[in-house]
């Protein structure tokens, strides 16, 4: 209670200062009057009494000051005074204040935005208990270029049983066979939804240590029973799907239609629960077809393992490598992992990776690059502001010296300068935070899936601390810079110099140095941005192997449960036929995997009269493409040799296939591929048995897994010939209409065939392309924005320094003009100064760029970090900017009227 009273009193002295002061005044006056009356009572004349009283009392203001001291708020009062003074003086120069606050806000905002991403994506621990123990296992087969692959089912079960290092090992799959997409159809009420799904086993949830919020999790029995033709009809919903699609109604124990089959909902996950940033909405029991479950070559399971307490990453990796050595012998199989060194082509090893690294993947480098770029921008901002503050300090020199002369200590002056800095950087910081939160939100909206873990991004405590740190740093910088190296000893000279106040060589060199640094950083940023822009340009110009103009695509899935391969094929055929008859549609086709960004299949395919390098009669083919209709014609894929599929093939008995150039070259080398035969496994597309297919044509390579990656081997099979179809297909239409104009028609056509099937990802092929290069595009856009900002700031810096120099040398220039110097000479001389500073900055910046651009080499495509065209362009741009920035002050100098200048002095 007393502490509260005290606080109230302190606050009163602080905030209601005027009231407290007038009370103090009144109290003293009362005392004085009493004294005077006493003196009069003892017989003094009134004015004599008054004088005597004043003498007795002594210095009134001194007492009052002591009384104020007793209230012990001087420190705070000074601060309040400083803040008031700062706001008054800043309000008097709104231009200066505005420039400082806005540049600071941009600098701090850019850094906070990128740091929010850096922290949220790269630094923040995963939201599982003891996340550092979680590991992701991959199969590495460097000999055939397969890295970070999933594991096969036998490998997974053997590993789980044999390992000593892990407390729990679990597996998930987002598909399990070649044609699943990690999505399922869910019927909520009467609305068909396409939602993201994952298939997990009971061990996985044990490894991740997550518990359903309601109901139960799958048990071992339900997730390891790989028999029958379909997985057990049970499911767990994400909290989010339960909330949005089912309105939180009690659902555990009830049935929900998933992929056309009623599933019992056994549980609801807690909010935010997910695996591998999959944005999972429906959790299904892990299930594999019994054939797949036995194949060592079918790498379909993603494995996550939790280290036992006290076991290190290194120890676990050592154990893993050691038992890979004789794994095959232990489980009595061959062709699994190497039993004899050296590696054979199909052999592989298992590799551990921290789960977080596996989730973040290759997003880490671009984010660090962006953070570095944002840091550069902040350095440029600070250099610019330091320059501004130095200039302002020059003109305020007299004020400071005068105050020092009147008894202000250096510490007091510094405190005032820092307060000024704090007010400005505080404003800049708050504005910057606002910019950052708006920017991050806009970024996530514009690029929803380009960066992992973005659904959890928020401006949280660590981010706020960094914002606070940046603002404080800027405030201190201001304080010290604006006070500079001023010494009280130079007081007299400073007062004599008056407003002209040449601020001395130190300031001059400091300012030039700051501009050089700005230009250098700007050069580095602009080169980085230039390289990235060129990368994006190169990516957009890649020939993906087909004609993507006027191509509209969408995807649909016919539920596996209530359809068999033949009826599915008929349904798709009906959809294609009806769409072909829509006016404006020139051709339609369907395919299982949509280029240029699909997952590889890697299917072992027996080939007639063929022996691979390691002595096997089959080859692993990277992509199987199951197509319907006039695929090559509709997609505009050129046929290099032989012919494409034709309608007459549909009825013929001999099954036919088309291969891409890479496959033809890899397998048949110099031989003619036409007429060769291979045997694709029928299970991969719904056919009942494996039949020999004759190659009838070779087509141009199509980029499948990212436009920047070279094409793999690809085999085309015509589903029309087999009259079967996998559940999910991508439809393409060559049309003159935009997707929006077609959406109504497409939905009507699809729903006529099956009303429970949603039309998803309807867009034109250009958007598919744009999406496949969205990350380099995002990087290029952000770096470009930073580089533009850097250029602008460097230009302002150059302009500022030259203008200041011109102002300082007005007198000299005036005299020279009066003595007959040519105006053009004055102009070139000033401009030369600007160009000199820029040239030094460019030189240093180029050196810096050569030093650090190696770091972004892996982010570039089709352009070298030392690309001469880019560098020449950057130098030209910076020089042009510098010329513009120097020209204005130089021109002003050359127009100086000597009469006016000399009279002014």
């Amino acid at each position, binding site marked *: 209670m007393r502490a509260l*009273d005290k606080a109230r009193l302190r606050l009163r002295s602080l905030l209601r200062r005027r009231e407290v002061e007038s009370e103090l005044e009144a*109290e003293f006056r*009362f005392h004085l009057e009493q004294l005077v009356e006493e003196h009069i009572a003892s017989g003094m004349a009134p004015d004599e009494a008054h004088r005597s009283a004043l003498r007795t009392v002594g210095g009134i203001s001194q007492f009052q000051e002591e009384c104020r001291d*007793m209230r012990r708020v001087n420190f705070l009062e000074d601060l309040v005074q400083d803040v008031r003074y700062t706001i008054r003086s800043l309000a008097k120069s709104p231009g200066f204040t505005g420039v400082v606050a806005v540049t600071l806000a941009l600098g701090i905002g850019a850094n906070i935005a990128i740091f929010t991403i850096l922290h949220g994506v790269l630094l923040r621990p995963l939201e599982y208990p003891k996340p550092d123990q979680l590991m992701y296992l991959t199969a590495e087969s460097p000999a055939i270029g397969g890295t970070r692959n999933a594991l096969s089912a036998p490998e997974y079960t053997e590993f789980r049983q044999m390992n000593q290092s892990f407390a729990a090992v679990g597996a998930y799959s987002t598909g399990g066979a070649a044609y699943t997409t990690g999505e399922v159809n869910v019927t909520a009420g009467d609305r068909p939804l396409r939602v993201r799904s994952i298939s997990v086993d009971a061990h996985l949830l044990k490894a991740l240590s997550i518990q359903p919020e309601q109901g139960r999790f799958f048990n071992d029995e339900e997730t390891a029973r790989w028999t029958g033709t379909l997985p057990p009809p049970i499911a767990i919903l994400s909290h989010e799907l339960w909330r949005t699609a089912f309105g939180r109604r009690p659902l555990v124990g009830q049935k929900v239609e998933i992929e056309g089959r009623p599933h019992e909902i056994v549980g609801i996950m807690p909010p935010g629960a997910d695996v591998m940033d999959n944005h999972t909405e429906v959790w299904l029991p892990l299930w594999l077809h019994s054939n797949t479950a036995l194949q060592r070559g079918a790498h379909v399971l993603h494995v996550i393992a939790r280290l036992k307490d006290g076991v290190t990453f290194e120890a676990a990796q050592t154990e893993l490598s050691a038992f890979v050595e004789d794994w095959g012998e232990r489980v009595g199989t061959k062709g699994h992992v190497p039993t004899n060194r050296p590696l054979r082509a199909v052999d592989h090893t298992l590799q551990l990776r921290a789960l977080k690294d596996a989730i973040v993947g290759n997003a880490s480098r671009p984010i660090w690059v962006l953070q570095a770029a944002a840091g550069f921008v902040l350095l440029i901002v600070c250099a610019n502001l330091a320059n501004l503050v130095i200039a302002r300090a020059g003109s305020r020199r007299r004020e400071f010296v005068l105050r020092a002369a009147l008894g202000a200590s250096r510490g007091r002056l510094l405190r005032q300068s820092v307060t000024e800095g704090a007010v400005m950087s505080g404003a800049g910081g708050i504005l910057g935070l606002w910019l950052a939160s708006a920017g991050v939100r806009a970024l996530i909206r514009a690029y929803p899936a380009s960066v992992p873990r973005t659904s959890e991004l928020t401006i949280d405590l660590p981010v706020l601390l960094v914002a606070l740190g940046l603002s404080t740093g800027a405030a201190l910088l201001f304080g010290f810079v604006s006070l500079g190296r001023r010494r009280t000893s130079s007081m007299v000279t400073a007062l004599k110099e008056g407003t002209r106040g040449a601020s001395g060589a130190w300031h001059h060199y400091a300012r030039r140095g700051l501009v050089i640094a700005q230009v250098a950083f700007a050069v580095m940023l602009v080169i980085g941005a230039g390289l990235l822009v060129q990368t994006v340009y190169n990516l957009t110009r890649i020939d993906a192997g087909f004609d993507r103009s006027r191509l509209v695509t969408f995807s649909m899935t016919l539920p596996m449960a209530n359809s068999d391969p033949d009826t599915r094929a008929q349904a798709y055929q009906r959809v294609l036929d009806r769409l072909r008859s829509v006016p404006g549609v020139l051709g339609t086709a369907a395919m299982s995997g949509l280029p240029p960004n699909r997952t590889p299949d890697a299917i072992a395919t027996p080939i007639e009269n063929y022996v691979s390098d390691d002595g096997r009669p089959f080859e692993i083919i990277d992509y199987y493409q199951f197509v319907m209709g006039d695929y090559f014609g509709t997609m505009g894929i050129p046929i290099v040799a032989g012919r494409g599929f034709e309608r007459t093939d549909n009825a013929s008995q001999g099954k036919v296939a088309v291969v891409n150039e890479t496959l033809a070259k890899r397998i048949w080398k110099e031989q003619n591929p036409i007429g060769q035969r291979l045997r694709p496994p029928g299970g991969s597309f719904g056919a009942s048995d494996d039949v020999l297919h004759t190659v009838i044509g070779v087509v141009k390579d199509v980029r499948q897994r990212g436009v920047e990656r070279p094409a793999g081997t690809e085999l085309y099979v015509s589903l029309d010939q087999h009259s079967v179809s996998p559940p999910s297909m991508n439809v393409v239409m060559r049309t003159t209409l935009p997707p929006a104009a077609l959406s109504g028609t497409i939905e009507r056509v699809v729903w006529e065939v099956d009303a429970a099937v949603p039309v998803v990802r309807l867009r034109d092929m250009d958007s598919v392309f744009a999406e496949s290069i969205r990350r380099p595009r995002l990087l290029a856009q952000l770096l470009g924005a930073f580089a533009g900002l850097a250029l602008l700031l460097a230009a302002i810096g150059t302009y500022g320094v030259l203008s200041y120099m011109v102002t300082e040398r007005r007198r000299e220039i005036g005299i020279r003009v009066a003595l007959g110097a040519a105006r053009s000479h004055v102009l070139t001389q000033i401009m030369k100064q600007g160009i000199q500073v820029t040239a030094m900055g460019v030189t240093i910046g180029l050196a810096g760029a050569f030093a650090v651009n190696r770091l972004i080499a892996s982010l570039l495509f089709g352009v070298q970090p030392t690309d001469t065209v880019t560098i020449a362009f950057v130098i030209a741009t910076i020089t042009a900017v510098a010329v513009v920035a120097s020209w204005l002050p130089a021109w002003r100098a050359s127009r100086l009227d000597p009469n006016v200048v000399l009279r002014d002095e």
Partner: protein
Amino acid sequence: MAKPTDLIQGTLDLLILKTISLEPKHGWAIAKRIQQVSREALQVQQGSLYPALHRLEQQGWIKAAWHLAETGRMAKFYSLTSAGRKQLDKELASWTRLSAAINLVIREA
């Protein structure tokens, strides 16, 4: 007027608290009262009195209010708070102990 005895450090607080313990008084009256009761032996200088009053107020031992004084003018009257009353008891006790001890030393030594 004889030079007033310098007050022992800290005793001014005690004197002020004691003086206003019966009824609220303004600064002038406090000084006069101390002077009278001590038979002019203790003169409280304004320069010490008012800072002391403000300090005591900040510490929450006394509180101030504006009232009409005998002379018909508004004056700032100080009175004890309950915390101040406790503080007075404490200071009185320690003063009694201290003065008794000093007396002992003076007489016996």
